[in-house]
């Protein structure tokens, strides 16, 4: 038995779908952020898999993932800063309560 590309892609796809589900259903902003990280991670994984199986010897996918991890770190840091700030103002991080910005 050989490990084919599809074998790696399916878990990554499931991870992405879980992230999607979580992002839509969760009410806590941090939980939403966790779901977001899941989706991002699934995408990173896909880059690496395609790089490895279709273009061995090249590094585009890997480099992209590398930078994506850096950006994800930055993004998470900033998002958590915002969440803490929001929490400080409204003592709550439930997204359903946070629709003041709509107007």
């Amino acid at each position, binding site marked *: *038995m*050989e*490990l*084919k*590309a*599809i*074998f*790696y*892609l*399916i*878990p990554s*796809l*499931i*991870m*992405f*779908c*879980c*992230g*999607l*589900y979580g992002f*839509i*259903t*969760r*009410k*806590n902003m*941090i*939980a939403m952020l*966790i*779901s977001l*990280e*899941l989706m991002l*991670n699934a995408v*990173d994984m896909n880059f*690496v*898999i395609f790089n*490895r*199986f279709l273009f*061995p010897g090249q*590094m585009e996918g*890997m*480099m992209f*993932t590398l*930078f994506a*991890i850096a*950006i994800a*770190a*930055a*993004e*998470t*840091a*900033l998002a*958590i*800063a*915002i*969440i*803490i*700030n929001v*929490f*400080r103002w409204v003592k709550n*991080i439930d997204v359903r309560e946070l629709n003041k910005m709509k107007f």
Partner: protein
Amino acid sequence: MESVGSIILYVVVAAAIIIFSVLAVTTRKILRAATYLLFTLFSTAVVYFMLDYQFLGAVQIAVYAGGIVVLFVFAILLTSHPGHSSERLASSRVALGLIASLAMLAVAAYSLFTRCTLFNAAPELTPEQAVDMNKIGTAILGTGDGQYLLPFEAISVLLLACIIGGIVVARKR
């Protein structure tokens, strides 16, 4: 033909990814969700190792598992009671989430299974093709074709901006 060990490893890793992903989005305790995320990220790192990207796996563990999840844990501890479980979700919302994610799964899986090139095994890497630290370092700091100095610099600036932004946004007034 893969070795039995790597197949077993694969099965374990794939199962861990699926199970911990599902748990991470279904558990009602937020701190546990962060923990399951950590396990998922570790499993991903293992996948990177299995695909011969050792450096990437190391970065994944260091940045994600070591940095981001710790950040999450701190944020959670700051904003909610760790033992507190959130209230049960409304079924309509669960239905919406399920519709979206299952439709996503169906469309993506269908298109994956109709692509025959995805059913090839991973080609063996020749020594020249192996991605070692030397090559990565040259690629990141080079300006030639297939080299990434400019994105690297951009990321540096972005991170700096992000640090400043984080401080400005979160500091107490």
